[in-house]
């Protein structure tokens, strides 16, 4: 019951918003505080290993179910926390942006939807809140209602709808392949129809993958995240795409975490690894080439989601020994939420006061924004994985997992490990670029308006504090939250895997430092040679490819339609011609009189009547021929009987 209450609180908040029209009460803050508190109270048990479930007492094919295990609890608490932080930040920001009420409504709605997704106990409920989240967050994206926003909104909405539909398809396929109802958090299923199950899992993974920004389905993400108001971007990048990750973890659960190889969909692990690697790579390369700060961050969201997906893939691939992958992913989900939110918030601060997000127009801002610069620096360190900050911890875990996978010798995994390092360099390079161009570099000529609100600093500082805390005590979080989660997912061995693990070993630290160094070098080379201004040709980018494919499809469909149309026109033309010819022929026949056939003039009766008489005669003769062969050429040799008059048969009255 209380589980269901959690998503309802924000909805009540919307009503409260109606009631407090005109008063300056920060309803989202109140609501998220309440949610955070209640969530913590409700989910304590779930974290302790006692999952909660609640089924609504209704009849019919759909019984809404809510459940909370450790995984849900972690995500719910993370959500509530991040919302809380952002709701401190957003009122100030939205003063600048405008449309506060609309923003607050969609914020609350999205919160409700996300909580619902994380607390859903069956896939229908999950899908329900998933779709709700799509719609609610769509209003974030189109908040500005200008052409760019609407275009991004369409991108976002159509991709998300496709995701929802794919999820539905997956649910259908998996539902057909399994005997019972599909419940979230119920562990692996044994399919009766493995093929359908595989396809279903693929569809579900694709559906969540769209949300998670998994390449090649990430196209919507940079558009949507960069055009939304900054607090919304923070939440979109910090949390909404994590719904995809959550979904992928749950998908993995359908197949089974921590099982030996040979389960129902063994391809899922390698596939996710492959896609995760691609996502990382695509995201980071695209990020390097961006000039807009928010777009750069958005591409980094893609890239960081790649880390998470990679971790999941490796975890699934390794089966029983893949605990590190799963743990690393979950850990990275949390960390990414923290530093990506901080980064977006920082960029937002600069945007509020300078009105600019193009990196090449900024520079030397550390003088005007000292606090922001420091906090941003911490976040940059976090995302690049510098030792001592939270990113380091999760990236290290993920790296260990990938290395372990690479030890199997599978070329995919070997390449995954190599690319993992490469992406680390790329990340470092692009953030060096971001930080350098924004805060260092040549001072900008832009006018800086207004003063910095303390709320901005407080919210960012809170995030930074946690980042640093996690960075210094990486195992604390791991043992408190991630391990119970893995255990809840059936990965009993996870705790054992990390028992012997030390984050502060020289190899990792040195490796990371080398990566950072290389990143800075790359950044320097890029900035000096202008390589970051390179625009890839259309056929090389996915977006361009997509456009080409779309144009192609459009052309094909237009051609097809043209053919169809002309065929239909032909048919209807022929039809109408025949009909009109027929009718006019009838008309003429009816009105023609006194015609001439050959040299014979027919008077009084219409010519057509005469023709028809002839036709009738011919018809009769034809039938007669068919029946008797009447017009015999040879006459009978005997007496011609056919005109003999049978007098014998005449009854003669007089004769009697």
């Amino acid at each position, binding site marked *: 019951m209380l589980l269901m209450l959690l998503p309802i609180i924000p909805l009540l908040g919307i009503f409260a918003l109606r009631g407090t029209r005109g008063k300056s009460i920060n309803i989202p803050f109140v609501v998220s505080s309440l949610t955070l508190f209640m969530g913590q109270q409700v989910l304590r048990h779930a974290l302790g290993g006692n999952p909660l479930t609640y089924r609504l007492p209704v009849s019919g094919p759909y019984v809404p179910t809510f459940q909370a295990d450790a995984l849900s609890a972690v995500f719910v608490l993370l959500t509530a926390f991040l919302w809380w932080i952002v709701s401190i930040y957003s009122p100030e920001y939205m003063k600048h942006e405008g449309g506060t009420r609309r923003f607050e409504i969609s914020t609350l709605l999205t919160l409700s939807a996300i909580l619902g997704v994380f607390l859903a106990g069956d896939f229908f409920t999950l899908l329900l809140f998933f779709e709700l989240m799509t719609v609610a967050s769509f209003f974030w994206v189109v908040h500005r209602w200008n052409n760019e926003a609407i275009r991004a909104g369409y991108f976002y*909405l159509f991709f998300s709808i496709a995701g929802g539909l794919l999820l539905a*398809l997956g649910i259908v*396929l998996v539902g057909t392949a399994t005997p019972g109802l599909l419940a979230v958090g119920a562990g692996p299923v044994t399919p009766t129809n493995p093929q359908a199950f595989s396809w279903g899992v693929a569809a579900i993974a694709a559906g969540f993958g769209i949300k998670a920004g998994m390449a090649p389905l990430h196209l919507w993400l940079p558009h949507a995240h960069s055009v939304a108001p900054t607090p919304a971007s923070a939440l979109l990048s910090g949390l909404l795409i994590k719904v995809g990750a959550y979904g992928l973890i749950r998908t993995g659960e359908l197949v089974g975490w921590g099982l030996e190889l040979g389960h129902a969909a063994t391809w899922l692990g390698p596939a996710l690894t492959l896609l995760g690697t691609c996502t990382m790579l695509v995201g980071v390369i695209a990020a390097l080439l961006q000039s807009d700060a928010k777009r750069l961050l958005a591409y980094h969201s893609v890239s960081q989601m790649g880390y998470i997906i990679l971790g999941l893939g490796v975890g699934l691939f390794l089966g029983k020994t893949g605990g590190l992958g799963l743990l690393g992913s979950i850990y990275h989900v949390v960390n990414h939420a923290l530093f990506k939110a901080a980064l977006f918030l920082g960029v937002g601060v600069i945007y509020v006061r300078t009105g600019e997000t193009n990196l090449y127009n900024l520079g030397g801002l550390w003088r005007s924004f000292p606090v922001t610069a420091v906090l941003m620096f911490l976040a940059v360190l976090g995302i690049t994985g510098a030792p001592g900050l939270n990113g380091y911890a999760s990236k290290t875990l993920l790296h260990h997992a990938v290395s372990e996978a690479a030890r199997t010798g599978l070329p995919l995994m070997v390449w995954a490990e190599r690319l993992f390092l490469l992406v680390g360099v790329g990340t470092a390079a692009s953030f060096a670029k971001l930080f350098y161009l924004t805060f260092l570099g040549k001072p900008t000529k832009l006018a800086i308006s207004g003063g910095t609100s303390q709320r901005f600093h407080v919210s960012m500082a809170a995030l930074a504090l946690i980042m640093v805390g996690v960075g210094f005590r990486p195992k604390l979080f791991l043992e408190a939250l991630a391990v119970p989660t893995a255990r809840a997912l059936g990965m009993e061995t996870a705790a054992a895997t990390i028992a012997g693990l030390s984050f502060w070993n020289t190899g990792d630290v040195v490796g990371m430092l080398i990566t950072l160094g290389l990143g800075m070098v790359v950044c320097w080379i890029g900035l000096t040679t202008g390589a970051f201004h390179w625009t890839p040709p259309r056929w090389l980018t996915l977006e361009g490819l997509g456009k080409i494919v779309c144009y192609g499809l459009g052309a094909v469909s237009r051609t097809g339609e043209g053919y169809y149309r002309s065929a239909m026109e032909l048919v209807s033309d022929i039809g109408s011609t025949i009909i009109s010819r027929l009718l006019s022929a009838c008309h003429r026949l009816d009105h023609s009189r006194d015609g001439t056939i050959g040299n014979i003039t027919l008077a009084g009766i219409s010519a057509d009547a005469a023709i028809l008489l002839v036709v009738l005669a011919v018809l009769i003769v034809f039938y007669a021929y068919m029946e008797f062969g009447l017009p015999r050429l040879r006459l009978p040799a005997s007496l011609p009987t056919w005109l003999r008059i049978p007098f014998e048969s005449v009854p003669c009255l007089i004769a009697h």
Partner: protein
Amino acid sequence: MTDLALALLSGAVGGILIGLTPRAGNRLRNIVALVFSAASTVFSWRVAGAVFAGRTIRISGEIAGLAWSLQPDPLGAVFGLIVSTLWLFAGVYSFGYMAGEHKQRTYYTYFLLAFSVTLGVAFSGNLLALYLFYELLTFATYPLVIHERTSEAMKAGAKYIIYSLSGAGAILIAIIIVYSWTGNLEFAGGPLLAGGGLRPGLGWVLALFVAGFGVKAAIMPLHRWLPAAMCAPTPVSALLHAVAVVYSGVYGILRVIYSVFGHELTGQLHVGRILPWVAAFTILAGVIIATQQDELKRRLAYHTVSQLSYILLGAFTLHPWGLAGAICHMISYSTLKVTLFFGAGIIAKRTGKVRVSEMSGVGWQLPRTMAAFGVASLGMIGMLPLNTFWSKYYLMRGGVATGKWQLALVLITSGLINAFCFIPTVVAAFAGERGQPTLETGSGTSLMLAPMLLLAGIALLTGLWPGLVWPGVDAVVDWFF
């Protein structure tokens, strides 16, 4: 039995009464219309209740040695429920929409007559009665199609009549063949042709039936009357050309497949195996054409063409899940489509805009209308808080369960194209100039708006709680499988 007779007669009596009332006196006429359609609705709910409770209600007789009978079974009861409930909504909407229009008396007369006839289709107990009411429906709705009396409307009316009568002719031939085989046309005793095995020519008979009913169900090459008929007043387009008339065709096909041939026999025929693909083609082609229409009502009409084939697709899978999906879709699609049409009507009435390209800014003038319109659009995609998701879900399950997973893909693709079809309209409506004064004022508008919002609400409610309509679906599926 009394309920059945009263349900059928209320509309007819009301229609005749209205025909006899003096030309002035809109208020009186509205009251009569409301009272009789409400009565009809109540009685048909009672009939449906009795049917679901397992009682047999039957009225029968003979014409020229041919027995006709009215005996609703669960399928008929579900159809009757949909029709009668929506009729009430459309009636109230009409009061708002038709105020100030010409020829109101004719309109309401045939509006109520058509109600009776549609219920007759729903409650018919054998092929003859079905055919009879099906044919009558054409004539009862013709004056509504040509209500505007423009040359365009007249042309549309002629098209409608010609298509419908040709279809009815095909049905008549098929009925006669069935009659000559079985000597019996009743639905009640299980599938009519099931006992006779695979007769030669069976496939042709099925094709004749499907083609005949397919005219009204707007299967793709036979759909052309439907977009043309959109020149009718919006309540008519909403109720008749999105639900009642077209559903009678769909209902006929369901009847033919499940009551005349039986799903087993249909499955053995070549034609039966082709049919799902015909429906799939219509689904995709209809919605693709819809996206290219600029006139909102035409867009909705082509979309109707597409959506009707969802129902047919479910029926053609010959699987319990598919049938469940079909019945679900009959229920859910009707609520949403009527909402969409109502919205189009309000927009046209209050702002005079009928084209999608003119919609910019309408959302701020008619916020509640466009919100409900948006909700219904989401439903057309098959998004979850709306009831169409469930129908789509079961349709896909039916397709997958019979091994035709491509059908599920077709449905998914169609859902996405649906998004392209409607979402831009809604977004554009809100994208335009803001701060215009609201036009949702006046009692006329609220009479139109209330049914629309209520229907959208029902769609949401049944989407969240499909258990509300599930007993009906379950009963139909149990009846035929």
